[in-house]
């Protein structure tokens, strides 16, 4: 059979909980899909929708945003802000015909290496099932026009 499709997932992990969760998963030698490549942000609240769009545009097949559990955010409630943005972002991606599984938000505390590892495994399978994200076909419809810049503003304004 032909070699199976290996999706690439960009992970935005908050410095205090989820990045440490990934560290813990490693330290405790949990094996999980190598498809997620992590970027450390101080707080999931720092994840600007344009980061997500950038990642998808640059060839990622999915984006995982991970932060502290609600109520456990190191910055009181940055994760809640992230959640709000995430919901808006999903709405927007839907309009562009991007499957919801491609962008996911999970809570994983510093002690939940397994939670993060499972999330990565699950998401990898889901995205693999969806196949590669063809940004050009699915979003730009072939022409070079990029709706993204406009979209960012939309998201942010809705924020308040």
């Amino acid at each position, binding site marked *: 059979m032909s070699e199976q499709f290996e999706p690439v997932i960009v992970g935005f992990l908050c410095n205090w909980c989820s990045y440490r969760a990934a560290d813990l998963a*490693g*330290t405790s030698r949990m094996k999980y899909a190598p498809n997620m490549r*992590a970027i450390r942000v101080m707080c999931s609240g720092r994840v600007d929708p344009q980061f997500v769009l950038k990642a998808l545009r640059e060839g990622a097949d999915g984006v995982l945003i991970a932060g502290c559990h609600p109520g456990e955010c190191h910055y009181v409630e940055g994760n809640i*802000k992230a959640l709000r943005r995430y919901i808006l972002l999903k709405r927007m991606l839907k309009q562009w015909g991007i499957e919801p599984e491609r962008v996911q938000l999970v809570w994983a505390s*510093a002690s939940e290496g397994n939670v993060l590892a499972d999330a990565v495994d699950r998401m990898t399978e889901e995205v693999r099932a969806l196949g590669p994200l063809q940004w050009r076909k699915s979003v730009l419809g072939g022409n070079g026009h990029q709706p993204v810049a406009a979209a960012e503003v939309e998201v942010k304004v809705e924020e308040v």
Partner: protein
Amino acid sequence: MSEKVGVYVCHCGTNIAGTVDVEEVSKWAGEQPNVVCSRDYKFMCSSLGQELIEEDIKEQGLTRIVVAACSPHMHEKTFRGATERGGLNPYLFEMANIREHNSWATNDKEAATQKAKALIDAAVERVIHHQPLEPIPVEINPTTLIVGGGIAGITAALELANAGNHVVMVEREPSIGGHMAQLDKTFPTLDCSACILTPKMVDVGQHPNITLYTWSEVEDISGYIGNFKATVRKKARYVIEELCTGCGICEEKCPRKVVDEVFEAGLAQRKAIYRPFPQAVPKYPVLDPPNCTYFERGKCKACQILCPTGAIDFEQQDELIEIPVGNVILATGYDLFDSKRIPQYGYGRLANVFTSLEFERMVNASGPTGGSIVLRDGETVPKSVAIIHCVGSRDNNYHEYCSKVCCMYSLKFAHLVHERVPDAEVYNFYLDIRTPGKGYEEFYNRLLEEGTHFIRGRAADITDAARLPGEEGKLIVQAEDTLIGKQRRVPVDMVILSAGMEARHDSVDVSLMFGMGCDFNGFFTERHPKLDPIATMTEGVFIAGACQGPKDIPDSVAQGAAAAARVGGLISQGTVMMEPVRASINKEACSGCRICNDLCPYNAIIFHEDQKVSEVITALCQGCGTCVAACPSSAITGAHFTNDQVLSEIEGLLWDVRERQAVPA
């Protein structure tokens, strides 16, 4: 401008090299744009490894450093050091985590090698956009705020004060002492709680370095490590402390008696003007208006008339006091699980079912019964007593966690019953006897010798519905004796419910006020569950005692002292260096939309009405970046996490798949 980047790939013995083809990776890295030198080495964190970096900077004039090794939480500081010694600004360094996030997380060598390249390329792309930064020095105000005057808070206060530091202690109740002041004996040594606690309370009351605010609460806290500002509400006592000598005449003459639900757990009465207990610190009484005849009907004033020093002031108002402090120690303690939540145990319905706290007061020599164990009627001595373990604990319907102290205090209760009522039968219904601690297991063995009946099984029902001879007029505890595999009904005269500890009812509000988290049970979250159970995620805020999780006295004392040591360390440093990860607003670009103002959890962003622009108070900013992400006109920059840095990091991270669908320019 083009930067000269040096890339260093660590083998970490075989930890990385075992899975990642490090030679291949470092060779590949060397071929990437801007990378002028790339090496792999057995142990980059070793002094030799670090020297490699230092020399290359000097000899090859590197301007940026990337180390691909373990997690930045492990060695970022180490390599920043090396970078600095090499003569570069330490923040011109970036780390690629190819161990925890890669070699340890998969066995697929090929995939791991590929991922390592991506992570390194991301770091390279990112580090190019790094800017030199300077850590922010912060002055430490040597005064420390301690919230809660229980044994943990008292210990911390005395440690700090004796070391010559000023301490402000705020206690909600009229006296310090906390739950420990209510106890009679302490396990396993059985020394009298008051005897060991009251001297410490007195020390706190008299210590020149300790300012004590009882009957007070912290209403607000602002600022940051070294420079907090606490607002304390000093509730009206209706007693002028300067004049009061604590003679107690007011209390004696007050005609109004009310049930003392707090200190005496409802077993005894107190006056409307009162001190919770004779050894209370401070000695000043408190008047409680809702129960005071004068406040109700406008007459009486017995206390005022009879006070020899004229210290009663019915007009007194709450005071708000602002106190600048450098660090905070939270020692707010615990609440006892409310046994009424388990109706099948009959507390509140069946008279002779007691809570552990009620029993503590009862056996206390200075308590309502003078230490004699009697039923609710106040005279009948029980011939048989059942002690129910794990009330509200180890039960997903209430609290999943083990409350840790109940086993030991239940054993203590059993012992006290044997001691005071020698011919009484004592039945302990337990799930597991948990006695980890010095002298604890020995105490358990002692109880076995004293003839306590231990029945392994959670009590299911406590009822007065007799059905067998010998059950009439008794309380019947029904449970399975799991070691025999039979259901048993044990008729007793008295039942004691060993209720667990739970987080303070208002712990969530408190944690929010101090900008830190608490777990799902409401206990405060420590910075690290193993390596740092004293600090919190908020710099300058520490926790001690049962507010972090169920604890007995020795543990609380240890943590209190530890917290004091940590604060003491900071005070003697005088200043702390803080990560320069801060947000700043470009006035020109700011549209004044004020979205960021409300987003900031630290109120670090102010709005200049005149210029219609917002500004970040660097000292208050904690660097979360939420505002940066939210600014519609991208006017806010988050130092060390700027948009260019993250965006180029993304590009690097996806170097191998970009072609797959790169967007035509």
